[in-house]
């Protein structure tokens, strides 16, 4: 993590609003992603975590321009690619690739593995030294598959092997940044470990930068150097892995961390159980988006939106008026702080042990 370098990927105020029609003449906007700021440096892995529907996948798809952002800017290697057309993107496609979540849907069932992996090369008219076939074999070997299997079809492989094929396809163009959209969530736990370790080895050996989208906090902790926590289309906290996991400042991060199922122990604070559901992105709460479920929410949280700012001079930035301090699991869960905003009644504590 070389601080101060020009970031490979710079995202500012990125937003995606989907228009929806509700009722006869009502027109709403789903703010799936609403103002994201983050940087990814070369060779760095950024984990994007959050619960379902918080906009992680939408963000990932915008980064590789499968979705058109409605606000903000994406800069890649110093060039603004927010609204670049297909032709302008072509040289950048080689540097920016994506790995998909579902290995059963992400491979064309009618193509052989060789054709699938060679597709990015063919589409971009690249003839690698030694020929496409040699490159495909090399890639298959790189991801731990038998290079002799290049003329097999996807249905002849298991889920983990298919995901490796997807990884090989993403690597075909020698990218600098890979957006991995929940690359292991569809896999069996033992296979998850293999694939994550493969990704980590590749990241080290090839110096890849990753935007790693996941909801599994353990996998993110294993894989990512930096972590951004998203809630309802916003980043609520971003920082180095250890800071996020050891000293989370945002109440939501704490709740999220405490929700990780653990067969061994619970921290002294027990499990923080958030009440209610995530509010609708059609009409997000004013001020801090988390306030409706936060046990620390006060009037200012409804009035003012907390900016994502670093505190105590570190790399960790939190969007909260009342950031937590101290290590995770230490007493300042909802049990410690009296439910100040009792009026909202949105947060309930539960120490489950």
């Amino acid at each position, binding site marked *: 993590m070389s601080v101060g370098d020009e970031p490979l990927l710079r995202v500012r105020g990125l937003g995606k609003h989907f228009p929806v029609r509700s009722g006869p003449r009502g027109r709403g906007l789903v703010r799936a992603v609403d103002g994201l700021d983050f940087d990814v440096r070369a060779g760095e892995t950024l984990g994007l975590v959050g619960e379902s529907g918080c906009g992680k996948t939408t963000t990932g798809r915008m980064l*590789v*321009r*499968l979705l058109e952002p409605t606000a903000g800017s994406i800069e890649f290697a110093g060039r603004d690619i927010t609204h670049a057309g*297909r032709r302008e*993107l*072509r040289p950048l*496609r080689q540097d920016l*690739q*994506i790995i*998909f*979540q579902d290995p059963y*849907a*992400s*491979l*064309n*069932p*009618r*193509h*052989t593995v060789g054709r*699938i992996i060679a*597709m*990015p090369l063919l*589409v*971009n008219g690249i003839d690698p030294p030694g020929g496409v076939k040699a490159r495909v074999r090399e890639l298959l070997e790189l991801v*731990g*598959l*038998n290079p*002799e*299997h290049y*003329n*097999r*079809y996807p*249905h*002849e492989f298991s889920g*983990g*092997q298919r995901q490796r094929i*997807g990884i090989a*396809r993403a690597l075909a163009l020698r990218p600098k940044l890979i957006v991995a959209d929940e690359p292991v969530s569809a896999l069996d*736990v*033992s*296979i*998850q*470990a*293999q694939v*994550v*370790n493969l990704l980590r080895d590749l990241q080290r050996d090839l110096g890849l930068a990753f935007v790693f989208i996941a909801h*599994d*906090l*353990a*996998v993110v*902790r*294993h*894989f990512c150097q930096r972590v951004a926590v998203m809630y309802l289309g916003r980043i609520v906290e971003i920082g180095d892995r250890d800071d996020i*996991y050891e000293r989370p400042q945002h109440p939501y991060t704490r709740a999220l*961390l405490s929700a*990780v*199922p*653990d*067969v*061994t122990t619970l921290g002294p604070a027990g499990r923080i159980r958030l009440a209610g559901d995530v509010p609708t992105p059609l009409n997000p709460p004013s001020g801090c988006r988390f306030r409706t479920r936060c046990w620390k929410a006060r009037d200012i949280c409804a009035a003012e939106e907390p900016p994502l700012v670093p505190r105590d001079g570190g790399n960790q930035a939190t969007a909260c008026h009342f950031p937590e301090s101290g290590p995770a699991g230490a007493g300042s869960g909802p049990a410690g702080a009296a439910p100040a905003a009792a009026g909202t009644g949105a947060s309930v504590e539960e120490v489950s042990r």
Partner: protein
Amino acid sequence: MSMSPVEGVALAEVESGGDADAPKEEKGFVGRSPGQLAWLRLRGDRTAMVSGALLVFFVLVALSAPLIELLYGIGPSDQFQHKLDRFGMPLGYAGGVSGDHFFGLEPGLGRDIFIRLVYGLRTSLLIAFAAAVITAVLGIALGALAGYLGGWLDAVINWVTDLVLAMPFLIIALALTPTLTLRFYGERDAVSPAFGVGVLIAVFAIFGWTSTARLVRGQVIALREREFVEAAKASGAGLGHMLFRQLLPNIWAPILVSFSLAVPQFITSEAALSFIGVGLTEETPSFGRMIYQSLVYLQTDPAFVFFPGVAIFALVFAFNLFGDALRDALDPKSSR
């Protein structure tokens, strides 16, 4: 926090690498494509094989019609008036079946039924295949573009589809064919047989593409959001690659099935149109026309109805059976 999923790492690479390919796969394992698997399933289906063999036989007969004429020694327009009695009925049993005339003679004109059936098969298959190919090409092009690009193009194509579907086929065919013929030929001119065939194909093509277009559009919309399509998009693939490499190979199965079921439909439609006297000229041999002519003789010469009737029945039946078998082979999950 449990790290078990990832910390318990480095399990043996059970799945990757050289699994069972040590002994028997030394000469190189070639994966079986979904198409090859479907072919194997089709091979194992007896109905498919029998109906397929029958279809191949019909197509061969149609293709080699001039050769058969040469061997048989009788042309489709040759008349054998001297083998009819004075009422115009063929002499002999079962409509004049004999060693010279396998299926007997037509009452009235005294043409040979066998060779007319052979040429009628040719007409029917030509019209049906040409119409099916044109409708398939039109339907695939319009459906794929509408489904993939969406937006206003989709709206326009859908609108045109609805418009075509709303037009009554029979009435338009009845109205269009004579009008078209009159535009190109005078009231008393002899209409060339090829023109009649062309008009029929055109009429079928105009009305037939809608179902394929809808089918393809639906399939493309379903596939469009699949991740392998997005992967190609993320690699910078253009429209041509998306349609022809990524999408169409995945929807060949339903297209093939609809094609194989469209052909018999066009055969019967051609027969129906010929039956009501639209389209083909008198001297063009065709199943529909023969059945139409034979109905007058239903009581006096039933053999004349029998042979064309059986021929068209066998042809359409074989096509339908084969289409169904094809559907089962391509999509084994669909309920029978």
